[in-house]
Every structure is written in C-alpha cells, then in structure tokens.
C-alpha cells in the first residue's frame, strides 16, 4: 500500500460522509417536495449544499471504484468506514452536539475494525494471466480461502 492509495481510501470516507451531510442539510433547506411539484426536485440542485453534496458523492463513487481496482471489497468497505467516526467527531467538536456513550462505543468498535483490516494485505493474489500462473503455479490456489 502506497501513500497515494491511502489517500484514495481517505477520499472514499471523506467524500461519502461530508457529501451525505451536505445533501441532508441542503434538502432540509429546500423543504418538503411533493409529487405534485416534482420540478422542485430538479431545482433543488441549485441549492449550494445540494450541489456540493452531489459533487462530493460523485467524488466518492470515483474514488470507491479506484480503490476496488487494486484492493479487495472486504478490505475497502471496513477501511473506509472511518467516515462514520469522522461524522461523529464533527458532530461533537464542530456542531457541539451531544454524543452518547453508546455512540462513543460504536466509534471505538469501528476504529478497532479499521485497525484490524488495514494491518492485513489489501488484495488477495489470484493468477489471472499466464505469466502470473507461471509465477505462482498451481500452489497459488492455497492463497484462496
């Protein structure tokens, strides 16, 4: 794992959590949208929070796809769940919201999960090409679960 790859994983976590927060704040500013005024949903993108939220969610999707191109799904998902922790810290120290003990325990569990997974290899080696098959041979099947 290189520093650049860790940055991509951080991008997944940051873009998802901040993007969701901005979309939520923007849609509350826009107000309730009924099926009779469906065009309001399209005009909602003119709200700055909604617009930036959508851009960040596009950034999330791009960085998520990038991460999946060089890391296992079972590595990327837990590793990027730090976004939940980040949201809690923002709520506590930036928005001055009350964070209950059970939430702090949740933060600890997620942090422990991230710590567990990031100490292991990011990718399961599988021979896809002839050269890799030659390199790893039939014994490489032992790498599989």
């Amino acid at each position: 794992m290189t520093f650049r790859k860790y940055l991509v994983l951080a991008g997944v976590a940051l873009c998802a959590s901040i993007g969701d927060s901005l979309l939520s704040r923007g849609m509350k500013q826009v107000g309730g949208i009924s099926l009779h005024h469906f065009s309001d949903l399209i005009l909602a993108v003119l709200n700055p929070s909604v617009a930036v939220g959508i851009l960040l969610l596009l950034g999330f999707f791009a960085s998520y796809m990038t991460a999946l191109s060089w890391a296992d799904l079972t590595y990327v998902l837990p590793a990027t769940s730090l976004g939940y922790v980040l949201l809690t810290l923002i709520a506590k120290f930036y928005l001055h919201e009350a964070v209950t003990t059970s939430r702090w325990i949740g933060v600890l569990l997620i942090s422990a999960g991230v710590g567990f997974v990031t100490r292991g290899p990011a990718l399961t080696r599988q021979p896809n090409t002839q050269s890799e098959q030659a390199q790893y041979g039939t014994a490489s099947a032992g790498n599989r679960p």
Partner: protein
Amino acid sequence: MKQTYAWGAIAAIVLASTTGDVLLARAMKQVGDVGALWRQSGLWTVLARVLRNPNFLLGVLAMTTAFYSLLFGLSWGDVSLIGPASASLTFVTNAVAAKIFLHERVDRRRWMAAMLVAGGVVLLAA
C-alpha cells in the same frame, strides 16, 4: 404489517446492495489498476473500459435498485431502523459474498473487522 414491509425492504436493500458491490468489485478487477492504466493510456481509455464493462453496468443497476428500496423502506419504517439495519447487515453479507463469488481471502482478521464495523454502525445510529 408495516414492520413486515420494513424488514422486507431491509432484505431488498441488503440483497441489491451486496449484489451491486460484488459486481462493481468484479468489474474493477477486470479493468485493472486505474492509476496505472490512467498513466499508461489516459483518462478516456479508463472511462471507456469501465463504462463498457457489463458487470459495471449491472452493478450500477443493482445499486440503483438498492437506493429505491431504501426510499420505499423509509416510507414504511423508521430511518433509525432501516438505516443501521441495512448498513450493518450489508457489511456481513458482503464478506460472505466476496468469499464465495470473488474468491477473496476472508480470514479471521477480515471477519472481525466486518463484525466490529457492523456492530459499531448499529451503536452509532442507536
């Protein structure tokens, strides 16, 4: 009855979301390391390879299904149930699906991580 619908929606979200994640992961493994491909052939080659991949398109379709299932679920049940239940269950089902369909090496470390994060998500949303 609404509770039954809500759990039905949770099942649909988890199923569609897991299917989407597995298909997208498979698509991106077929495309290859995006960073290396970008440096070698440029952004348009990367985009063309991703967008032409059938697994990617099916994955996006499954993710869209998960999103609409979430919307339906929210109309039947509380967000405090639907959100954490579907998010935490998806971590566990993804680990199972990745082991079966993607042949990922889901060792004890990764199982622990999936369970800890799933439990943490439930507590955060409680």
